[in-house]
């Protein structure tokens, strides 16, 4: 009898030990079976993806691209660039007048009847409020510097807003494309920490619905949008931090539209239900030479370095051909880039000649150039986390080595890179990129007054360029500005303070089922394919639509 009892409790123990593993396996199997179920796709909704989560859904506080993308859907500015990026169209402003003079005045005539998403009416008070908040020192915004030359901003009547500048400043017009925020919701709050930043109310074509941190942001069409209700029902912005997984989602219809990387372009182009788009971006990548370093002070040396770097190879292999060689400080496809300035050729022999002229020869035949007993070596740095720059650096290192220059290549984490090297002007050469605004004014980058504390961290000084830069920002006439900037382009290309590497193509993929639907004057609705504009694919976003017939069943 005793033994049987023992055996029973013994069995109990064994069972207790074995249950958890068995349970676990069962659960695992069941969930695998059910995980394969895919729901029907939402019709007429756009799903986009982003690598990072947004930070502030408030146009004056946001700095990152994710926030800016959502803000452009939810908010409007007074004006915005047209599709060719060479002029403006009105958004919240119906029209505007620029009076030139020693204190230029811009008067904006605002649209009437525009409603905020909560139903209140938009007026010039909101514009003034937005401006005041930007200029308020307690607001943690980086945009203040763009408005420093504003002498005063006034509300003339509920639909007229007037800005007076301290001096002629043509880049100023562009600054009024910033999203306008509602006075009635934010005037009594600390804007930096307001819950509004998680729950925005704007005037834009889409209304905010929800934001699940690190997962998604959802917006829906605004039926009261002043340009008419968008055709799409809504947009979902998914946060997918891994490029490889993002690609998977695109291929399984989990994402409709996303920027893609050069190495994915070819693959995406071959997918039947996707269309890939490319467009030169508003910026360029370059190698900046610290002109305070005696190594780089002779112009011939900088030109030699540019001749020695095979930029074609870089574009071909690192960018998979998705880029063009940059010729100077302005991206080639914009109106203010000088088309007559040609890129420096890849010519190692010419580079060697130039260097020899400047006194650098391989005296002791060890492969390294020497002058006055000192070998030609320097350290090239860039920020970590950017695969393209990393690969570029490795290639440049090798190409220069073939010429006889000893280059050390190092990567640093972004904040360290900025604080310890760039801001301190404590570097030899760096690989960086500029993301520029559409206005050509490049004062902060090239003017000699910006050497000390501004963004002219290579310490470039050319009095003629200085003069032209000052003239350019005070000139309102486009033709005259064009001449000024074309000349700047020429001069800077001659000086080569940077080796201008390339202008990358921004590439993206979009599901073919999206089309543009617009109403023609006869009242009929026609659809046409979505075209890549200079201003970007999403320029006509409110006209995007998914016709029922084109939705594929999975």
């Amino acid at each position, binding site marked *: 009898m005793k033994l049987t009892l023992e055996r029973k409790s013994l069995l109990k123990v064994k069972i207790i030990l074995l249950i958890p593993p068995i349970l676990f396996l069962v659960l695992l199997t069941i969930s695998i079976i059910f995980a394969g179920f895919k729901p029907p796709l939402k019709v007429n909704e756009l799903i986009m993806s982003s690598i990072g989560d947004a930070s502030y859904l408030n146009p004056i506080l946001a700095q990152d691209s994710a926030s800016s993308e959502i803000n452009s859907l939810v908010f409007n500015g007074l004006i915005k660039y047209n599709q060719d990026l060479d002029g403006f169209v009105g958004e919240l402003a119906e029209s505007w007048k620029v009076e030139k003079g020693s204190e230029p005045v811009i008067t904006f005539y605002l649209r009437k009847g525009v409603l905020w998403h909560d139903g209140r009416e938009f007026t010039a008070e909101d514009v003034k409020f937005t401006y005041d908040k930007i200029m308020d020192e307690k607001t943690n915004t980086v945009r203040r510097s763009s408005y420093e030359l504003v002498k005063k901003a006034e509300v003339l009547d509920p639909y007229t807003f007037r800005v007076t500048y301290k001096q002629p400043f043509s880049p100023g017009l562009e600054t009024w494309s910033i999203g306008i925020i509602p006075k009635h919701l934010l005037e009594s709050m600390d804007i930096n920490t307001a819950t509004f930043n998680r729950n925005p109310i704007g005037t834009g074509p889409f209304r905010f619905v929800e934001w699940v941190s690190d997962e998604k942001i959802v917006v829906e069409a605004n039926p009261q949008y002043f340009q008419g209700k968008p055709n799409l029902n809504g947009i979902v912005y998914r946060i997918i931090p891994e490029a490889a997984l993002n690609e998977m989602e695109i291929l399984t219809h989990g994402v409709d539209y996303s920027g893609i990387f050069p190495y994915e372009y070819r693959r995406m182009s071959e997918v039947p239900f996707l269309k890939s788009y490319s467009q030169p971006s508003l910026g360029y990548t370059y190698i900046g030479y610290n002109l305070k370093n005696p190594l780089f002070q002779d112009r011939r040396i900088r030109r030699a370095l540019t001749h020695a770097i095979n930029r074609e190879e870089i574009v071909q292999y690192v960018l998979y051909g998705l880029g063009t060689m940059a010729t100077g400080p302005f991206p080639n496809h914009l109106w203010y880039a000088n088309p007559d300035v040609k890129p420096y050729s890849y010519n190692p022999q010419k580079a060697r000649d130039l260097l020899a002229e400047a006194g650098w020869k391989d005296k002791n035949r060890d492969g390294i150039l020497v002058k006055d007993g000192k070998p030609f070596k320097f350290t090239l740095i860039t920020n970590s986390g950017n695969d393209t720059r990393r*690969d570029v650096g*490795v290639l440049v290192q090798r190409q220069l080595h073939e010429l006889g220059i000893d280059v050390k290549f190092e990567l640093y984490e972004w904040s360290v890179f900025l604080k310890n090297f760039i801001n301190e002007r404590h570097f030899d050469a760096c690989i960086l990129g500029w993301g520029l605004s559409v206005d050509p004014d490049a004062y902060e980058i090239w003017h000699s007054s910006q050497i000390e504390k501004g963004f002219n961290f290579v310490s470039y000084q050319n009095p003629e360029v200085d003069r032209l830069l000052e003239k350019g920002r005070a000139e309102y006439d486009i033709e005259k500005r064009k001449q000024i900037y074309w000349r700047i382009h020429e001069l800077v290309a001659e000086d080569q303070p940077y080796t201008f590497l390339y202008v990358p193509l921004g590439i993206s993929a979009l599901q073919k089922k999206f089309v543009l639907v617009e109403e023609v004057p006869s009242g009929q609705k026609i659809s046409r394919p979505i075209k890549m504009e200079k201003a970007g694919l999403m320029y006509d976003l409110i006209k995007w639509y998914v016709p029922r017939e084109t939705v594929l069943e999975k």
Partner: protein
Amino acid sequence: MAVGGLALIMTMFLIAAFASFLSPYAPGKTEVSLKLKPPSLQHYLGTDQLGRDVFSRMLWGSRISLSVGFVAVTISILIGILIGALAGYYGGWVDTFLMRFVDTMLCFPSFFLILTVVALLGPSIFNIMVVIGITSWMGTSRFVRAEFLSLRERDFTQAARALGVKDFRIIFRHILPNALAPVFVTATLSVASAILIEAGLSFLGFGVQPPAPSWGNILTEGRTYIFDAWWLTVFPGLAILITVLSFNLLGEGLRDALDPRLRGRR
């Protein structure tokens, strides 16, 4: 088993030492026209996105992984022995104080701390070694302390004290050599974990920085091309696995050998 581990480790060492002879290509040699080629006779483990030979990079990478492991562990052992010896020998409030300190250090979420420090101070190979070293000495110190506590009461110690030998000499010349047995075990196992930590740091972008070839690096750089170039993911991971495995085997084998209580009916 331990012998197997030892053999693997010896091989690793040889590879690391003779990396320059064994690599068919220079690890930094880029040949962009050959980018992302699968394993072949010319490139045993394929090429990466800049056309560099993965096999050569892996050989050179072994140097980094092994040196990070060893230096970090050396640092951690030195600290651990010092603290453990002092705590175990003197006892009393010295012991309590030091052990409280050990407890505090143990409660730090160590990987997070390592990540924060390396991210904030800069991911140089030196920083990584030091940081791993100063966050992993706790285990050693406990073992050393335990040994000291027992050895302190032994006859030879009493005799030495009676003879008037200074404390310092007693600790280091008499007791310590006898206390080292468990240290070998923890040391070996710590190398294994140090290598894994470095790989983890590389994955998050804070390991040894490119263009230097470390196994963690190759893995991370290959992450973007995971669907195109599986060899950039599989091989470095495998290398890490085998190296860490060999250290673990050695360590466990040592532990079994030194601990007679666990031997079975062999």
